[in-house]
């Protein structure tokens, strides 16, 4: 592009000119704001990482009850903390590929039953000791043994045996699983010295930062390590600080007044307005998370597939994306997979909003006309109460008597979700299809929140899991998706984007569909261009 603009964009990156002035000059030269912004991003990347400074993050999802124990981590702030001091065996990259971290390489047997992780040598923990394959094994044991309290316990279940052989950590499974390396990227499985058996919340790991101060529910501070093994790619700011700002307005105000450099969870209703503010940009990234209405297929009246289909046709997906997500998302197709997953079949026809079909299926179901109760709460997902109201209206238009019962947020996950036959909920998505299906749609899954128990489905899932040939696997996944779409208890109107925002002096941003704020790695992978 234009030489003058290129020159100007490097001036912005060096902090000699504001972003707003730049866009103004660009507009004068006939360049739109969107193009000007992307030029700026390119210029920032071309300049390369800048080291130093204090990078501040304002984050939702922290409480004074938080701990640094990876096993008990379930919300955003503690997860951001883990990424600072800890690392997993492997990571899932922004493009969905495996990135080697503590493992140097990974190899599976032909039946995908035995997996050999070659562990890197000479990587120091922040306590000075070198990480060993024994540490890896002890970590995995802590998350899978009998007294484990770990949130990763569910994914560790298929493991039959673990052992160390020289530099290798070898996992043997009860049945083949071609996706096992992806499971090892789970954020609970941070490698800790001695597996963290003695002091799980010590915050000692192989990550780029060490804890400076740790005040749960208030703020967490980190200092860069000089002996970090991968300093080329991570850990640019000298210090990072995470402020717990649970209130949405407090977060946006802190970013606007320059007290933090990045925030997570920008509310869709203010994202458009916020993006117009000077010196910051809103980052919306399509992910795998989705908002759902779930029916127990073993409980009347939802045991009748005609009624389920009636409800699936009655929901207006586009309206939900427009009104609940304000366009920061995409429509769903009643199975929990979208194009962010590897091996997604894009040819499965989209289910449309069709009142005539809804009425027809409702007629066929022979439902007695008594109200169908849908339970919802503000905490089920952001906008869940409004979404239920929209659903009620469009169902009414098809003659389906939907009744909303509003439940308190408190206790929703223990008393309503996975207990009541029809309610609103959400899923965060998983790195691979197998894990998503095994978590919630396998007959024996703990969180089978639609009570979908079909031997044919389980067989397909297990067959796909052990299948090394990708074409065959993709075909099996496609059949499973169609089965779930047409017979399951899941109504999936929308996939939500991860919406965050960063100040214009933050460099190194990439869109990562695996999680919020670059899969919680923005603080360790971004830098301050004016540091």
């Amino acid at each position: 592009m234009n030489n003058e603009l290129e020159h100007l964009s490097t001036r912005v990156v060096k902090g000699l000119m504001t972003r707003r002035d730049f866009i103004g000059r660009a507009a004068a030269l006939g360049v739109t704001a969107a193009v000007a912004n992307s030029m700026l991003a390119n210029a920032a990347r071309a300049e390369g990482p800048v080291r130093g400074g204090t990078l501040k993050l304002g984050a939702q999802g922290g409480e004074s009850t938080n701990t640094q124990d990876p096993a008990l981590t379930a919300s955003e702030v503690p997860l951001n903390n883990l990424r600072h001091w800890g690392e997993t065996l492997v990571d899932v990259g922004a493009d969905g590929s495996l990135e080697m971290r503590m493992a140097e390489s990974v190899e599976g047997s032909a039946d995908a039953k035995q997996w050999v992780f070659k562990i890197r040598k000479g990587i120091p923990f922040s306590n000075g000791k070198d990480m060993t394959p024994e540490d890896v094994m002890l970590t995995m044991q802590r998350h899978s043994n009998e007294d484990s309290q770990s949130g990763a316990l569910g994914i560790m279940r298929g493991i039959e045996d673990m052992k160390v052989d020289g530099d290798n950590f070898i996992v043997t499974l009860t049945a083949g699983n071609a996706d096992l390396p992806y499971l090892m990227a789970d954020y609970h499985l941070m490698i800790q010295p001695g597996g963290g058996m003695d002091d799980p919340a010590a915050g000692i790991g192989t990550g780029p930062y060490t804890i400076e101060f740790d005040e749960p529910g208030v703020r967490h501070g980190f200092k860069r390590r000089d002996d970090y093994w991968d300093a080329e790619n991570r850990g640019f700011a000298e210090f990072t600080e995470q402020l717990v700002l649970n209130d949405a307005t407090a977060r946006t105000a802190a970013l606007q007044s320059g007290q933090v450099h990045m925030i997570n969870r920008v509310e869709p209703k203010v994202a458009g307005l916020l993006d117009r503010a000077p010196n910051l940009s809103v980052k919306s990234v399509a992910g795998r998370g989705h908002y759902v209405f779930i029916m127990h297929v073993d409980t009347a009246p939802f045991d009748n597939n005609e009624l389920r289909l009636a409800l699936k046709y009655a929901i207006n997906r586009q309206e939900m994306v427009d009104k609940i997500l304000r366009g920061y998302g995409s429509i769903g197709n009643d199975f929990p997979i979208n194009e962010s997953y590897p091996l997604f079949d894009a040819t499965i026809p989209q289910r449309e909003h069709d009142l005539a079909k809804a009425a027809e299926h409702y007629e066929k179901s022979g439902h007695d006309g008594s109200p169908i109760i849908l339970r919802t709460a503000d905490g089920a997902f952001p906008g869940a109460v409004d979404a239920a109201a929209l659903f009620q209206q469009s169902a009414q238009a098809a003659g389906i008597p939907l009744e909303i019962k509003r439940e308190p947020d408190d206790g929703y996950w223990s008393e309503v979700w996975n207990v009541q036959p029809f309610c609103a909920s959400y899923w965060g998505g998983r790195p691979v299809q197998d894990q998503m299906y095994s978590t919630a749609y396998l007959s024996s899954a703990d969180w089978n929140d639609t009570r979908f128990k079909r031997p044919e489905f389980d067989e397909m899932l297990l067959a796909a899991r052990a299948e090394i040939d990708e074409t065959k696997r993709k075909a099996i996944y496609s059949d499973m998706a169609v089965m779930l779409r047409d017979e399951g208890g899941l109504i999936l109107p929308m996939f939500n984007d991860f919406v965050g925002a960063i100040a214009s002096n933050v460099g190194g941003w990439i869109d990562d569909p695996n999680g919020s704020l670059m899969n919680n790695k923005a603080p360790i992978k971004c830098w301050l261009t004016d540091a």
Partner: protein
Amino acid sequence: MHPIVTLVAQRVALGVLLLFAASILIFVGTSILPGDVAQSILGQSATPEALANLRAELGMDQPPLTRYFTWLGGVLQGDLGTALTNGRDIAESLGSRLGNTLFLAFWAAVVAVPLAIFLGLLAVRYKDRWPDRLISAVTLTTISIPEFMIGYVLIYWVSIQMGWFSSVAIINDSMSLGQKLNAIAIPVMVLTLVVLAHMMRMTRAAILNVMQSAYIETAELKGLGMLRIIRKHAFPNAIAPIVNVVMLNLAYLVVGVVVVEVVFAYPGMGQYLVDHVSKRDVPVVQACGLIFAAVYIGLNLVADLVSILTNPRLRHPK
């Protein structure tokens, strides 16, 4: 023994009994709430085994009565225990939170109490004229607007537009007093606006009540100025009700400001308590509840003492 000493002793003993009753209520209350601490920690991703393991480790498999008395035994020996959720020492984390809460309450009170009393006196002096009406209108408006709304409006103007003060009120030990005051400037403004009207109106009403008395008329007939009459003759006789309402508002500033804490991310006790209630972390909830109850009981005791000491008739009972 002096009757006041007896009264204090009686009231303190009653206070201890009340605290004991409060601890039982809180314990029963948190037990009735749906879900337990293990369920809350593991959230949506809880598996039955992980739940059982966590419950066993936290001692939640013991019967409730045993748990309550274990806790009570600890407290009587001055040990508040550790938080179930993150294993931290409660006394330590609570101590810094309580310090922050008192810091904010103190500065809000330093601004709000003198201002409210001064505005109350001014309103009496210009009763039914425009200063009185203006003061009442403004303070009643600010008390009627929800405090988070006032907070947002002030953040928008004072922090984002003018850039005078910080919109995030996170304070810590490494900050100087000046930095801390800068951080809490907007929350102090909000709290002042919220508590002003109550104290101002009470001051106004109490003094106006006294102004009806014959001795005020006498003072007026002696030719004393209006402000002097209010200050020297009316105000001392109106102190008791004013102190009462001031104490109520101070108690509010200590125990009731969780909304302001959330809006400004202030690390006070309110947010700390709410987090632990939602995680069913009973020992922490108990400890916070005891402190809040103690603050209420203590401030009420002070209010009673002040009204006795300022009233010669009560000070020297026949």
